[in-house]
């Protein structure tokens, strides 16, 4: 067995090994495990497994790297956050166990070379992450957990019809074999790709099957919200992309993405709770990435990757900052948080950087991603969609930054920084997209 295969196996085994310490020191074991995962992901860039059980190319590597990075940041952030929150729904050691299983299921989906098993992996992400939402066991978190389970599962069930139709059309579910066969445009393949858009679209946040998304993001503990936004939705998008490659239905995908951006920007504008607002921002960014991928030209795909990787860190930063504010003020209402720049300077910097990052401000990586995607829409002749998307991206930009400004400035509410660890992680996460943006040409050369 060659080194790449061992690395892929270890990526699935290490979080499981960390869970062995369930009864003793699982928080530290999880952080150590996540650190090892990050190192393994870096090595995977040079040492890829041959196509067999695993299928790891440059594109899937970007997703694997994102998953391990956000997993590492969230596990460190959780050390303080979870110990301070009222975790009555899920006990602390169970929280880490589920977090590890959640990471395994995402890494499995991003590496496996079989459409059927990808579906199994995506369903497993629901199983492993559902109970994490009800960590604090409020009435709202129970309802959000239930909505997440039933809506996502019912939606992803649709996607299994797509898997059956792919198997019917090709006689195999091996991703590399089907993609090597080239594009096949038959009625059943078209139906399979369209049904996958609805099925996996439920998990990605495609309108109108996105309804679980704001509830789950707002009620989950902040490190889990960061994992949802930063890596769970992109993992589902990765699986959808692999199906889309069989027969690219560009027009349908771009239109769905455009309509979803319109919906997300409108919903985002009137949100009274900051975590829900960031959830809708995730929906907007995911659908923009969907459009980038759907254009099927290298510029669009490159743009989508830039957007996804920068967004994952920016959004993680936004949710970590939200967690700091929630820990300190005990409210999720935008209207009840103001002037925190005076009381929580580190968190305020992270919150400001993150909100600028997720709304695509230069020089953040998200900005370059958005520009590349918009350019690719232009050269794909998607002019009406281009105009609509530009207008509503401006809407979203104003909506997010206006709300964040209200929270940061004005008369100060009673608040204080929750120690040093949590604000530091928030700042690290929110700074990385600037690094990606500033050196995007270098990063471009390095990762693709």
């Amino acid at each position: 067995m060659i080194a790449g295969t061992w690395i892929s196996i270890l990526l699935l085994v290490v979080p499981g090994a960390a869970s062995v310490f369930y009864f003793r020191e699982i928080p530290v074991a999880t952080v150590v495990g996540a650190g090892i995962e990050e190192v393994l992901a870096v090595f995977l860039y040079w040492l890829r497994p041959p196509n067999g059980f695993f299928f790891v190319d440059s594109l899937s590597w970007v997703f694997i790297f994102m998953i391990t990075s956000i997993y590492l940041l969230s596990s460190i952030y959780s050390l303080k956050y979870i110990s301070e929150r009222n975790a009555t729904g899920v006990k602390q050691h169970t929280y880490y166990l589920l977090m590890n299983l959640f990471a395994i299921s995402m890494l499995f989906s991003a590496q496996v070379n079989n459409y059927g098993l990808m579906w199994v992996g995506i369903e497993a992400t629901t199983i492993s992450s559902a109970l994490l939402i009800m960590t604090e066991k409020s009435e709202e978190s129970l309802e959000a957990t239930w909505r997440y389970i039933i809506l996502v599962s019912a939606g992803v069930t649709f996607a299994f019809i797509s898997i059956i139709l792919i198997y019917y059309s090709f006689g195999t579910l091996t991703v590399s074999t089907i993609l090597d066969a080239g594009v096949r445009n038959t009625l059943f393949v078209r139906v399979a790709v369209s049904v996958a858009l609805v099925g996996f679209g439920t998990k990605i946040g495609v309108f109108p099957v996105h309804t679980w998304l704001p509830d789950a993001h707002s009620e989950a503990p902040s490190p889990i919200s960061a994992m949802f936004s930063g890596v769970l939705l992109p993992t589902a998008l990765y699986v959808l992309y692999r199906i889309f490659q069989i027969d690219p239905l560009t027009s349908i995908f771009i239109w769905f993405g455009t309509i979803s951006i319109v919906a997300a920007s409108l919903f985002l504008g009137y949100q009274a709770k900051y975590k829900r607002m960031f959830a809708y921002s995730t929906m907007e960014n995911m659908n923009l990435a969907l459009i980038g991928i759907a254009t099927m030209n290298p510029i669009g795909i490159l743009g989508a990757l830039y957007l996804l990787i920068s967004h994952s860190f920016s959004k993680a930063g936004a949710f970590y900052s939200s967690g700091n504010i929630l820990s300190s003020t005990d409210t999720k209402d935008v209207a009840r948080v103001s002037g925190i720049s005076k009381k929580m300077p580190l968190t305020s910097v992270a919150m400001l950087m993150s909100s600028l990052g997720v709304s695509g401000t230069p020089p953040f990586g998200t900005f370059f991603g958005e520009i590349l995607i918009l350019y690719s829409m232009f050269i794909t002749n998607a002019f009406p969609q281009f105009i609509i998307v530009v207008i509503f991206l401006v809407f979203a930009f104003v909506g997010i930054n206006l709300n964040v400004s209200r929270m940061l400035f004005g008369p100060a509410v009673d608040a204080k920084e929750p120690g040093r660890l949590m604000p530091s992680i928030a700042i690290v996460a929110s700074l990385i997209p600037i690094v990606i943006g500033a050196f995007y040409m270098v990063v471009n050369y390095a990762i693709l």
Partner: protein
Amino acid sequence: MNYESIVFLLSASILISAFYVQGQRYIISMIRGQLVQSLLIAGTTFLLSYLNHSIDLLILGLLLLFLRGVLITYLLETKVPRRKSYVFEEGVNVPYLFLVDLIFIVVAVFIIYSIIFSSLVPVSQPGTSSTLLFPLLLFFQGLFLITSRRSTFSQIIGYVEEENSLVLFAIFLLPVPIVIEASVFLDVLALVVISSVITVEKFSHERMEELRG
């Protein structure tokens, strides 16, 4: 009676069980309706295993029997509060739901079937595309059960019905590899286990002010 007729008879019975579940207000009756449905699908799988000389289908039938028939029913029944036979879902207008259900299903299924599914040529025996109508009906019936009911139990059963319909669709069209089918079964089982945790905490689901928008 030939084998094809038996398959149609079993499929029709599966559909009747789905309508029976839709018509129930008492939770325990719904769970038992789901049990009958899973057993009927297991029976259909055994018959197709014989017709197609397929060991995979035989294993699938056994998995259905054990995981869906026995284990899921047991898990759900143990979560029903005490005095099981009296636990029911309030505010269910059965005749109205049936009417909406029929309109929804008939329209959805016949459009989809006539455009797409009628041209599918099943690989497995008995090999007629009209058998595909049944899983399609069951799928939408499960979906309707989820959307039309508020109790956690009803929605779990709706989800299990949806999954049952996919099993039926696969065995009628072209059974997917057993490793994948078994993984799907375990996923569904795990999801029902997770869901049953919620049933203890929250029996029904209403709109919440905190989760609006």
